[in-house]
């Protein structure tokens, strides 16, 4: 069973090809890290997969009707946008919208999902705070909780740990890993290759307008790929505590 299959996806914007012929599929229990240098097309790929951008080729998500899509995949955009001073609880409860029929109020199941998401992200003390008054990191956690409350088999998150302190970065990655262990899956774009290597079950590397590599972290983060697509060298080791990845130097950049 696959949760998402993408084949031959080509995305053009303003007559420029951003990504060409991307194919991959995601099954249950995967935490997929989407990596690549700035401008490699990580956000573009996720938006096209979700059907938010027009693209050639096929995405099983984009092909779904909008309501069904919202029950299949949750999406956390990179922009941490909250337009109105609503409470944290209300913001998180927006994640339940796809599960409510027209005119239906929030029920017991919805309440459980909201409470679960709040507990998962450690937001209980913030429950009644005004979302627009939170710090950047706190807000990021609230928005992740909103995505979790949507309770979908698949979660796509665009740089969910950017701006979080180390403890919350690790906690958040563990949370996504926990989702994967429970049979759900997540695709997260991420710049911290160390966290990606440690927590993701699989990495997809984008570069030069195409999918460069797709596989286990150790297979993707090869010295050649790092030099060619990130312009870095790195120390890479397996230890008792898991994979350890540390960028060391910049190469080939003028």
């Amino acid at each position, binding site marked *: 069973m696959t949760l998402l299959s993408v084949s031959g996806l080509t995305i053009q914007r303003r007559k420029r090809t951003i990504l060409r012929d991307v194919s991959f599929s995601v099954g249950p229990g995967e935490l997929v890290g989407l990596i690549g240098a700035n401008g490699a097309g990580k956000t573009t790929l996720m938006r096209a997969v979700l059907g938010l951008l027009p693209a050639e080729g096929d995405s099983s998500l984009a092909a779904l009707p909008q309501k069904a899509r919202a029950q299949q995949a949750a999406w956390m955009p990179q922009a941490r946008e909250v337009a109105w001073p*609503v409470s944290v609880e209300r913001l998180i409860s*927006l*994640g339940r919208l796809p599960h409510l029929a027209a005119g239906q109020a929030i029920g017991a199941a919805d309440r459980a999902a909201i409470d679960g998401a709040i507990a998962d992200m450690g937001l209980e003390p913030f429950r009644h705070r005004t979302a627009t008054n939170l710090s950047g990191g706190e807000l990021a956690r609230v928005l992740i909780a909103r995505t979790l409350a949507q309770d979908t088999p698949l979660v796509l998150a665009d740089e969910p740990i950017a701006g979080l302190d180390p403890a919350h970065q690790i906690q958040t990655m563990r949370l996504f890993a926990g989702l994967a262990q429970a049979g759900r899956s997540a695709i997260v774009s991420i710049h911290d290759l160390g966290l990606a290597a440690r927590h993701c079950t699989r990495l997809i590397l984008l570069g030069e307008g195409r999918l460069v590599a797709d596989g286990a972290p150790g297979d993707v983060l090869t010295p050649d790929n790092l030099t060619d697509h990130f312009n870095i060298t790195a120390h890479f080791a397996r230890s008792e505590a898991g994979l350890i990845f540390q960028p060391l130097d910049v190469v080939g950049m003028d």
Partner: protein
Amino acid sequence: MTRLMLILAGLVLALFAGALVIGPANAPYWDSLSALFVDDGTPLTLVMREIRLPRAILALAIGASLGMAGAAMQGYLRNPLADPGLIGVSSSAALGAVIALQTGLAAAYAFGLPLAALVGAVLGVLLVLALAGPRGASITLILAGIVVSALAGALTSLVLNLSPNPFAASEIVFWMMGSLADRSMDHVWLALPLIGLGLALLATLARGLDALTLGEDAAQALGINLTRLRLALVVGTAAVVGASTAVAGTIGFVGLVVPHLLRPFVGARPGALLWASALGGAAMLLAADILVRVVLPTKDLKLGVVTALVGAPLFLHLIYKTRRQMA
């Protein structure tokens, strides 16, 4: 939430009754109300049924329209400065109405007047949305509104100046400031169907506007069809503002003031704000219309003057608050 709605509904009811019993004829309140229900053969029944009732109904319906349209536009643009009067939608509707009146379209077709105002309002909304962009940044929104208002206002003046009727030119102030004086049941039947349709359309936006709190991308991923939402917003706003402006002229600031005052009471949720603002708008316009009758009973003080006196200072305050975001 429900308590807020009950309080607002009670307020509207009380003001509606007040609008019915207050007027230059100065009859005792109880006589006035009984003359409304029982035709006692005195002229008071005529006054109640043909003058005060239509005026009160229009104040209620138009206030609700402007309040809900303001809440909807603010929710969609995610900007508290949006108001159909300020961003030129009402002026465009007035232009449509004036053209219908002066070309004879209004006289030739039963619903020619409000439909022409609706067309004007649609063009105004589309122009502002196109100029301001989807996120409706304050500065572009206000600039777009100024341009659309100025253009529609100038064209309205031109059409009225070209009219062979010597009174028409002096009515620019009515179209700019609005009034409910001497409206009849004919005007109620003219405006009510479109207002009802528009309110129903705008009310369907509640969920979409809630989801838009998180931005367009997130809203779409929550299953909100943005194309349909935009269509309902444009048509709904144009219908309520068009019908309102066609019979009462341009009344500004209701759509700005009311959602702003009520937002804290609904937990800032744009969806819940829709009906609350409809009730609040009805209360505000009923109160304003009672005020113009009490303060200057024979001078036909324009409603827009009262709403602007309340609304403009608030608008300045909002600009002051959002100026960092605008800079």
